[in-house]
């Protein structure tokens, strides 16, 4: 066994991001064999302390400060918990549909941004291709149509958020027990104008993701892949539902571990483990224990766990997706992209259906009932299941908050992916190239963790990679920005 003192350490360190920051360390021995590969994410838990003492009705707006990437998910998840605190969890049709519209808008823009800006360079040009080309600028030069679509699709999603939340970012739409506005006819018609185009582009993006996976099946089948459990919420009838539903977990063969677990009872099924080397917690399914109970969340998990999708085009795409693994769960890390684009088309279909629903012009916006002191909200964020748990005192002040964000749930899976790719593509090579390190990033990016998707990076993941010997001396350094 090679001890740490004989080993070299590679550190891949992305810049500080909104939700925390992360780095990859790969420990090599003298022959450049991978001894250990880990993704460290410094999670921002200051929020849970900051929120102490704040009044509960402030939480859905305040909590959006957690994340500049998908604030709507936090907004709605907190709102669902706060609904229960005011006894208003049975929303009026207008309120629930407005919130859903907001959420589908968020999915649409978040998934589009991730796919086109962050991942398409790898898929279009290859993981090893010239890094000077392998970025969003390269996409603009080589595929100007796609680049334009990306911008327009993102903008459309943001417009949906604006008309439901009041602002494109950090709006106020969801309030305890409901929503603060309905959709005006003008707002509706402006969006309907672009709807067909959005559907068409979503179909195109789905084709790119599917074709990529099928054409590179040999390459991606094993790339950072491994068997795992999957978790998401599903509707009572088993349909994919990103806004509301019971928790379902399946094992690697697709057997149900638990099903339709009420949101308030999540703690009976899920626990969080602390590990000495990471600030981030590792959630796991209680009945399986910390060793085997880790699970994946996000697009791949959702397509795996649901029984069907309630919009026809996305369901057709889901069937094709599931056929690849003969109906068993798909464990291919790179298939996250395909699943993500199925969801993008689903979001577009849902937005279309909602825009045509007259309930959105309803006037009945808020319900309230008997107050409670404790509540849990669970929602599917673009990156996976999101849990918000609050307790308040008799004066309406928050005294306890616990959040499990999707990146935390995907912590163990991402670590496995990093380890696997490092073994597959780095281990034993005399020289570590940029392309090899990019393979590690490609695997992390498939999960769309918050740490790597900040928009400021414009499709690049700025990295400092250092080879450090056991005395801490930097013997090689590779920087990418």
């Amino acid at each position: 066994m090679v001890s740490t003192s004989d080993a070299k350490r590679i550190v891949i360190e992305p810049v500080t991001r909104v939700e925390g920051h992360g780095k990859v360390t790969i420990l090599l021995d003298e022959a450049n064999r991978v001894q250990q590969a880990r993704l460290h994410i410094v999670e921002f838990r200051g929020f849970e302390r900051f929120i102490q003492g704040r009044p509960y009705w402030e939480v859905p707006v305040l909590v959006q400060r957690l994340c500049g990437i998908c604030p709507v998910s936090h907004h709605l998840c907190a709102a669902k918990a706060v609904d229960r605190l005011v006894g208003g969890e049975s929303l009026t049709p207008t309120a629930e549909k407005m919130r859903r519209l907001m959420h589908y808008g968020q999915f649409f823009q978040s998934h589009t941004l991730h796919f086109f800006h962050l991942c398409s360079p790898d898929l279009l040009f290859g993981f090893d291709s010239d890094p000077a080309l392998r970025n969003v600028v390269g996409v603009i030069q080589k595929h100007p149509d796609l680049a334009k679509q990306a911008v327009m699709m993102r903008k459309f999603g943001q417009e949906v958020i604006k008309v439901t939340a009041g602002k494109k970012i950090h709006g106020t739409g969801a309030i305890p027990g409901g929503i603060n506005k309905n959709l005006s006819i003008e707002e509706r018609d402006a969006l309907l104008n672009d709807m067909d185009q959005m559907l068409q582009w979503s179909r195109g993006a789905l084709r790119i993701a599917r074709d990529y996976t099928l054409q590179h099946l040999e390459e991606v089948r094993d790339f950072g892949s491994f068997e795992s459990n999957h978790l998401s919420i599903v509707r009572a009838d088993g349909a994919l539902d990103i806004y509301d539903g019971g928790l379902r977990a399946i094992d690697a063969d697709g057997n149900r571990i638990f099903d339709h677990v009420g949101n308030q009872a999540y703690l009976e099924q899920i626990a969080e483990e602390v590990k000495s080397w990471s600030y981030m917690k590792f959630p796991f399914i209680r009945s399986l224990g910390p060793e085997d109970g880790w699970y994946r969340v996000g697009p791949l998990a959702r397509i795996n766990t649901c029984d069907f999708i309630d919009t026809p085009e996305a369901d057709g795409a889901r069937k094709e997706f599931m056929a690849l693994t003969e109906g068993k769960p798909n464990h291919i890390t790179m298939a996250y992209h395909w699943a993500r684009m199925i969801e993008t088309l689903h979001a577009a279909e849902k937005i279309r259906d909602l825009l045509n629903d007259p309930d959105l012009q309803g006037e009945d916006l808020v319900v309230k009932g008997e107050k409670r002191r404790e509540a849990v909200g669970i929602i599917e964020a673009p990156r996976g299941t999101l849990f918000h748990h609050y307790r308040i005192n008799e004066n309406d002040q928050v005294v306890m908050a616990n959040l499990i964000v999707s990146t935390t749930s995907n912590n163990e899976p991402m670590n496995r992916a990093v380890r696997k790719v490092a073994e597959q593509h780095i281990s034993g090579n005399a020289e570590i190239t940029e392309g090899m390190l990019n393979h590690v990033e490609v695997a992390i990016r498939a999960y769309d963790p918050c740490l790597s998707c900040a928009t400021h990076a414009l499709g690049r993941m700025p990295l400092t990679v250092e080879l450090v010997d056991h005395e801490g001396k930097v013997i090689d350094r590779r920087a990418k920005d």
Partner: protein
Amino acid sequence: MSQSVMFMIDGVQVEGRAGQSILEAAGEAGVYIPRLCYKEGLSPHGSCRVCTVMVNGRPMSACTSPISLGMIVENDSPRVAQLRRDLIEMLFVAGNHFCMFCEKSGDCELQALAYRFGITAPKYPYMFPKREVDASHPDIFIDRNRCILCGRCVRASKELDGKNVFQFVGRSAEKRIAVNGEALADTDAAVTDAAADACPVGAILKKGVGYVVPVGKREYDDKPIGSDIEAKRPAAGS
């Protein structure tokens, strides 16, 4: 009918009534003088100084200074604007004003003034004071982080509600708004009190209201503070 008094604001002849303050007389003529501690229906306090104008070349608070015949008032000038901007910026850094999640956002007079004066980020360092909240009352929430010590609640409680719920304690940096009891729940404060509606910022709030007014429909979303007063101004040349 009280006696008419003619005076000048920014080179324009204005007619007021004897006994009016500069701020009131100007307001009736459609000239907006920014204000924070002044609220119609309450006695003037003269503490925030945001209404400062130059009277015959000397700075005076417009809410407490009466008009007089032939008085020359400078209101809309670069040097007066700079002075007010500095005062507003100081109010921002002296408290903990997080507009991004404050439910008063869009309806807040301090924020609206900052927008009117084009302030995006204050030039002074934030002081991040430690301030207490009082959530004890079933219907009213006090967040001292946002208090600008304007005293409107103090006067509203006394003058309009006939109560004495709020008062100031302490001096200078230690000065803060206090309640007549251990906590607000021990006082006779009621959510229907004028004092519960008097606060220009988000320091005294009615519980559970939150963000019920959507973005776009809030008081200052589409028109700067003071527009209602300026709308009274007769069109030029008429």
